[in-house]
Structures are given as C-alpha cells and as structure tokens.
C-alpha cells in the first residue's frame, strides 16, 4: 500500500506537469514543469519527503537503467548518423568535456570568490 500511495503522488505531480505544459504553451516539457511543481510542494510542505521516499530512492538509483531503450534507439535513427557518425561523435565527446570542465571551473572560481579565501589561483 505504501508504495502505491507514493506512486500516486509522483504520477499525480507528473500529470499536473503535463496539464500545465498545455496551458503554458512553451516548448517546456511536462516532466520539467513537474519538477518545479514537486519542488514547490516540498517547500510549502504539501508533500513531505517521507511520503515519496521509497519510490524516489528506487527511481533515482536506477535512472541510468531507464535510459537503455532510448540509447538502443540509436540503431533505428541512424540515417543521418551513419553518413557522418565519426565527426558527430567527436563533436559530442569534445563539447561534453568542454562544458563539464568550463562549468565546473567557473562555479569553483565563484565559490572561492564568495568565500573570500583567495580568488587568485
């Protein structure tokens, strides 16, 4: 029963996200709006963490697994990829490294500035 109750809350939030998606009319997917809805509900206390804790834990621990079918889908959408797969892969790898490196570096530098423990290194 506990698991069912938690599922009802999580799917309820997701449904609200999809409903708001239609109302807002911007290309913002319902899942992202659902994230915002859940965060607001947690902050104002309508939903408490322990009301969704077990199912959340299961979903978060296995989020990588849920990507498998999407990744396998690469074989069916390969017309564009087949012709230029190597440059596409290179751009993907290089840009990912750049984004993670630059973002991490900037946040760390700003954190040091904010804390004031020497922004000169």
């Amino acid at each position, binding site marked *: 029963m506990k698991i069912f109750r938690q599922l009802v809350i999580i799917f309820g939030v997701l449904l609200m996200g999809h409903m708001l998606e239609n109302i807002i009319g911007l290309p913002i997917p319902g899942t992202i709006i659902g994230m915002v809805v859940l965060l607001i509900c947690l902050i104002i206390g309508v939903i408490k963490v322990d009301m969704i804790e077990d199912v959340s834990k299961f979903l*978060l621990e296995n989020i990588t697994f849920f990507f498998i079918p999407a990744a396998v889908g690469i074989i069916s959408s390969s017309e564009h990829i087949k012709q230029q797969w190597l440059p596409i892969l290179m751009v993907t790898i290089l840009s990912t490294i750049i984004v993670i490196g630059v973002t991490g570096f900037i946040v760390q530098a700003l954190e040091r500035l904010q804390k004031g423990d020497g922004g000169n290194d």
Partner: protein
Amino acid sequence: MTKYIDTPIFGVLISILAFEIGVFINKKTKISFFNPLLISVTIIISFLLIFNIDYKTYNKGGSIISFLLGPATVVLVVPLYKQIENLKKNSLPILVGIFVGVLTAIISIYYLSKLFGLDEIIVLSLIPKSVTAAISMEVSREIGGVPSLTMAVTVITGIVGNIVGPYIYKIFKIENEIAQGIGLGNGAHALGTARAMELGEVQGAMGSLSISVAGLMTVFLAPWLVSLFN
C-alpha cells in the same frame, strides 16, 4: 520463437539482463569506460542485429522502461530539496555557473560542428544535446533540427559525461562539491547527475538542479543564439 520475442517481456527481460551484466563487468573490472549503460546497450544492439530483430519489437518492452524516465526525472527534485539551504547560500555562483555552462554548450557545439564540417541540419540537431532528452528534442524541433538524431546524441552525451566527468575534475583540479555537481548536470543531464550522486549528496543535488535550470535556459537561449549565428 518469434511469438515470444514479439511480446513486451522480451524487451524488458533483455534490458534487465544486459544491465546486470554491465553492472557486474563494471564492478569486477573497476574500469569506468566499461560503463553499465554502454555495455548493456552494446549487448542489446548486438543481439538485435545478430537475430535480426527490429527496434520496434524490442521497444514493446523498452517503452515500458522508458516510461519510468518521466517519474524518475521528477523525483530528481528530492535530493535537491534536501540541499535547499546549501542552494540558497550559494545561489549566485550556481546560477551564473549554469548560465555560463549553457552558453558554453551551445557555442562550443556550434563551432566544433563547423570545424568538423557537419551539415547545417545536423548542427541544429546537436545544439541542444547537453540538456535532458525531453527538452533537447523539443528545442531541436523548434530550431529546425531532427529530434530523433538529437535524442541519440543526447544519450551519447550522457554516457560520455558519466564516464569522463570524474577524470575532468581530477585533471583540472575541480574539487568543490557544488562545482562538480553543476558541471556534470550541465554537461550530461540526468546521466551526468547519476554519476554526481555517486560522488556525493551535494553533487547529486546540484546535478538535479542543473537539469531543470539549464534545460529552461536552453529553451530560451538556443533559438536566440541560433538566429545570431546565421
């Protein structure tokens, strides 16, 4: 045999088995390139090709698994909420960092694509690839890319970030927990965040935050930047 393959059970079963094998190999070898997702996807694709099973058949079960991505993305907010005080205290570095990250992603993808001589339509499909698949596909459609190609490169981006993230941090001496989380979330969406969660609670929360904030920023910035490029 086909009648058993042609049920949702096949897709679900092979995915779980392949993932178990992936996790096993990853744990035994402790080599991060042997990523569970990468291994399981390789196993499944090989199986489908060898036995001549098309993706649609596999996806009868696969779509059941994909369905759980929605709720899993929503509950990414839970670790974020647990770190909300930390977030408030560091809101400026975090927001500026995510903003710079989003700009870096779009600009670097654009110029790297030009450097490698990719077609315009492929460039447009790659531009939103750093953010979570639901958003990247929407943005791709919006700016004139091919959503299915965007989906594919979004997942590849996630796998790459998941594997290389910790190495980048070691090389560039990025030790700050918040910075590590924001970097992984910005660069590799939910799959980066999955890795961030392994690094620590703060990293995981910051990764989750990046997914939604970077996603939203991309919705607004990508069409504008693309119009600037042209």
